[in-house]
């Protein structure tokens, strides 16, 4: 089970008041962070570095005798000053959300063999356009390409009708 991502929420966007975008790479706990704020909730989200997340998380946790949460807040303090300590570390994982998958999924031989299912095989007017429907193995690119393809398919269907 992998749980590499974390968010740190704040009462105010302390990074913006210092002129920062919230995007950072390398150093501290995180490989990369970004501004994940929405409306009045201000958050820095990021992927944890090896040793501070994922498969190594438990080992790192016990070896350093400090909680991951403490290390993340120290990281925020190092980057954004004392106010960095005021953050609250939040986590959500999709593991266990049965709509999207199941335990052991990642070990399936064809698990990430994306791009094979682009529409209902028996009818033309049910089109699949999730990022997994494209061979760009996820990411935003797959989603954008899938959206463009789906739009073209719909135009093709509606132009036949008119």
């Amino acid at each position, binding site marked *: 089970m*992998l*749980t*590499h*991502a*974390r*968010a740190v*929420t704040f*009462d105010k966007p302390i990074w913006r008041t210092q002129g920062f975008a919230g995007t950072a790479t390398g150093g501290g706990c995180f490989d990369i962070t*970004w*501004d*994940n*704020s*929405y*409306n*009045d*909730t*201000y*958050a820095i*989200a*990021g992927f944890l570095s090896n040793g501070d997340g994922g498969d190594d998380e438990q080992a790192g946790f016990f070896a350093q005798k400090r909680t991951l949460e403490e290390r993340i807040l120290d990281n925020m303090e190092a980057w954004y000053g004392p106010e960095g300590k005021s953050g*609250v570390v939040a*986590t*959500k*994982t*999709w*593991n266990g959300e*049965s*709509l*999207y*998958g199941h335990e052991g*999924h*990642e070990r*399936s*031989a*064809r*698990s990430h063999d994306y791009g*094979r*299912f682009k529409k*209902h*095989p*028996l*009818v*033309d*007017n*049910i*089109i*699949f*356009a*999730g990022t*997994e*429907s494209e061979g760009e*193995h*996820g*990411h935003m690119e*797959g989603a954008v390409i899938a*959206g463009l393809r*789906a739009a073209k398919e*719909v135009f093709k*269907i509606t132009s036949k*009708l008119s």
Partner: protein
Amino acid sequence: MGGSHALISNLLRDINILAAADPRVTLTMSANAACSSLASSGAASTALTATTSSTSSETNEQIAATAAILAMPTYAIANAVAFEPALPASTKSQMLQTSTWMYGMGKATGEPH
């Protein structure tokens, strides 16, 4: 606003502008409704009926359409939507073997303090 939320809100803004300018477009949005079944009788102007189920109300809504685009993970399509005609068994089985992108990764969430 953060990057992903900015992207979503700007897309929504553009969709609203396009929908307002085109009388053929009706925009219906619900954050709580999910498409539970799709029935298609082939290519015709209202060949497809989508039934939504909502977590916030007991009533299911039926929408007639020319086509449907499911912008969902392959697994979720096979797992959560009842199709007419049904997906061939082998297709459904293979779709259920396709893992959702980033499924195994922890997702970060920001809750108000």
